[in-house]
């Protein structure tokens, strides 16, 4: 193998380490340079992932389409989250640490996606989780500390369960590398605990609303978006080779989307609303995981939906960051105060519903098709019913935006607009490709 195959991971790591070291020697008000160093690491990783010719699987780590798309998505999403954070945390005492922790969590997420061995998966889980716990409690205030503690306790508990699953699988099959390792019944359930926790799937979802509400807004955007990408890619790999439990995964998917959507109904705090919405979205994302290996549509469905979800969800959180308020009522009249931010919000929320031509529409279309083609038409019907239900709470947020009256700050949401436009462009491009490929 060539070490160049791991260049994106190494670049992100180098960005994080260089950033941390630089941060030690730079005055507090000039720590912004650390954001640039981390950003350059992430951006160059994205460039190499997009152009990487290496498609190799060596023993414990696979570099294939799934890994490459995950690298690209994670790097770009982290870059957006970095921009969000950099605007808010200027001259904070621990500014450089924040950027470094984000880079490291992103690195762990990518490693989860590429892991082709159960032991590597466990290591990647820890690399992805520990920086995220620190991020959640970064502000050192009471809600942040509570969020971090909940996040940590749940993550540690479910991580131990996953480790038990790995032990069982190894004992049963005598291997931890993917094609050979098998995880029947109990081992499968235990093994799923870790990735499901990171993905925010039922029944490991309890941390999502508390962390999203308790931590600072840019961090909330990050931890509800980026770790999911790698966790779902890891689940997809597990479901395709190690596990053979499509029915179990389908039930988990149905439960996740239903619970997430129903719980979002009565939320008056937009961060909690978005948190439950991300749980619902995780449910849709678990659908291609459930039919992994049963239809060739599963892989494009998962990857496209992941990218679409990442950019759309970040856009919605970016609006919350820009508006600087969590109360649903404070969004009344946003369209008059800051029309571009309102535009971004409407595009992102309708995008999360799956309205064409946004990116999630293309992802959802493929997801429905994958479910139907994989023999789980009922799951497609459940997902469709859930989508209709979700319209209700997204519209609860959209409607006051166009109200005549209402007071609040004027927020400028550059990142939000970038994300919204990105969602539209990705969606139109994806629909165009789908239209073109439909006769193939």
């Amino acid at each position, binding site marked *: 193998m060539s070490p160049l195959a791991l260049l994106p991971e190494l670049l992100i790591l180098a960005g994080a380490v260089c950033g941390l070291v630089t941060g030690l020697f730079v005055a507090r008000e000039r720590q912004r340079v650390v954001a640039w160093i981390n950003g350059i690491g992430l951006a160059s990783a994205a460039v190499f992932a997009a152009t990487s010719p290496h498609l190799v699987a060596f023993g414990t780590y696979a570099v294939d389409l799934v890994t490459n798309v995950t690298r690209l998505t994670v790097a770009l999403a982290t870059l957006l989250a970095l921009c969000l954070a950099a605007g808010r945390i200027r001259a904070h005492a621990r500014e450089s640490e924040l950027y470094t922790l984000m880079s490291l969590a992103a690195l762990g997420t990518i490693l989860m996606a590429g892991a082709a061995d159960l032991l590597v998966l466990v290591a990647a889980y820890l690399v992805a989780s520990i920086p995220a716990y620190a991020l959640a409690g970064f502000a050192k205030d009471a809600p942040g500390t509570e969020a971090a503690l909940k996040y940590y306790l749940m993550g540690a508990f479910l991580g131990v369960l996953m480790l038990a699953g790995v032990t069982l699988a190894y004992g049963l099959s005598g291997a931890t590398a993917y094609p050979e390792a098998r995880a029947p019944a109990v081992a499968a359930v235990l093994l799923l605990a870790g990735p499901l926790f990171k993905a925010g799937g039922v029944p490991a979802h309890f941390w999502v609303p508390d962390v999203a509400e308790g931590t600072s807004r840019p961090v909330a955007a990050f931890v509800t978006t980026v770790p999911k990408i790698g966790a779902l890619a890891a689940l997809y790999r597990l479901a395709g080779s190690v596990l053979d439990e499509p029915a179990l995964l389908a039930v988990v998917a149905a439960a996740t989307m239903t619970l997430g959507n129903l719980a979002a109904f009565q939320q008056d705090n937009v961060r909690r609303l978005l948190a439950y919405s991300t749980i619902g979205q995780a449910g849709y994302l678990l659908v291609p995981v459930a039919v992994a290996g049963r239809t060739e549509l599963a892989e494009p469905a998962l990857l496209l939906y992941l990218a679409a979800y990442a950019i759309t969800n970040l856009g919605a959180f970016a609006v919350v960051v820009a508006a600087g308020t969590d109360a649903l009522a404070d969004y009344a009249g946003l369209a008059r105060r800051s029309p571009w931010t309102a535009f971004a919000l409407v595009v992102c929320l*309708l995008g999360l*519903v799956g*309205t*064409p*031509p946004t990116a999630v*529409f293309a992802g959802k*279309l493929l997801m*429905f*098709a994958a479910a*139907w*083609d994989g023999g789980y*038409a009922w799951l*497609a*019907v459940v997902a*469709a*019913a859930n*989508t*209709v239900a979700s*319209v*209700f709470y997204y*519209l609860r947020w959209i*409607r006051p935006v*166009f109200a005549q009256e209402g007071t609040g700050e004027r927020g400028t949401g550059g990142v939000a607009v970038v994300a919204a436009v990105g969602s539209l462009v990705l969606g139109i491009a994806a*629909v*165009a*490709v*789908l*239209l*073109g*490929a*439909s*006769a*193939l």
Partner: protein
Amino acid sequence: MLSIVIFLPLAAAALLALPGLGARTVVRIWIAATAADLALVAALWAGYGGGTAYETRLRWIPSARAGYHVGVDGLSLPLIAMTALLFLLCAVCSLRQTHRVRGYAALFLFLQTVCLGLFSALDLLLFFVFFDLAIVGMYFVIVGWGHGDRARSALKFFLYTFLGSLALLLGFIGLYLAAEPHTFDMADLIANPPRAGAAVLLAVGIGFAVKTPVVPVHTWLPPAHTDAPAAGSAILAGVLLKMGTYGFARIAVPMLPEQWRAYAWAAIVIGVVSVLYGALVALAQENLKRLIAYTSVNHMGYVILALGAAGLDGGRAARELAVSGAVTQMVSHGLVTGALFLIAGVLWDRARNYGLGEYGGLAGRAPVLTGLTAVAAFASMGLPALSGFIAEFQIFTGVIGAGAVVAGALSLLGILITAGLLLRMIHRVFLGGPGELTGRVSDVRPYELAAIAPLLALSLVIGIAPRWLLDVIEPAARALVTLAGR
């Protein structure tokens, strides 16, 4: 050429984003863009020679056979023309609009692109994109410029029709997966109907039935109509409802012919129930807009009935007549109901009330408005020399000739009830003694007359000399019956 027709309104909407435009300028740009679009559609009609014309097929990937695929034929061309006309007249009717004009005009131009695109789409995915965007556009029209309990009505509209659209999406995916090779292209799917099960027809049927709407999934319609602004109601009833019936004729019948023939009885039953139930409920309404909305349920019922008859095994000529009547009814309903909603808008503009009991004796104060309403009501009830008669005569002859004698006879009762309720409406609002709000009503202004009169004039032209329209529709109806009979 066709793509220019579709996207010209959207380009005009983008133009409206320029800063510093006054309200009058915005409306002028709006009217100019819709008028130009109508002129282009007229040119399309003049140059139309039969079959599928003005096809555009963009190939994104060389080996792929489909992509952005649009075209018109005898089914879609009349609807496209009706859409372009109705949007122009809605623009004219909104000449005095002062409340957030820019967004209003931009939304209507956006909706126009969406509607024209839907009727031209020859790819299921493209069709669905437009289908969904129409819901979003109309939601914002109702919630932004409606009145009454608009937020609730708009939410109900969005949720209900979005449910339909997702059922539709599942049906489209079923069609895609059942086709060999997999494709979303309508022309290919019609040429080689996929061997899809009844579940696919059910999903597609639910999607279009909600949009049409038929009983029992019609309950979103009355509140949405009542609380929408006048132009919004006219577009909703005139154009958006046609998306459902057009979908049946364009997608359900030719792509699932075996299933359609097997379940034609269901379409006929639903059609008859919609005809009778819609008419009876309309009879009981005290609110003018709700009354018109329920007559829409009744009129769309005739279309479903006729399309159901196309799946029977009676005489071929009769089935062709039924389909031709269905398409004519779609055009006729768009014109006449559009006019009725614009008339209701005039009353709202004067007195802010739709209650039938609040008015009375308007004929003395507003003779022109009375005349317009009378013509529209006669056209709606299917009186000879107006377009409704041409449509309904064809439908009844076709349905009874195709073998559904009982259904045809029952539906004839619908006409009787409709005539009764429309005459009762005229009687209560325009004749008799003055009501509480009669004093506030003045006659139509010139721009309102310019918006309403062309619709009724066209209905009269179709009623007296329908050949030019039927010459376009009949070949398409023949083709559809052939496709349904495979």
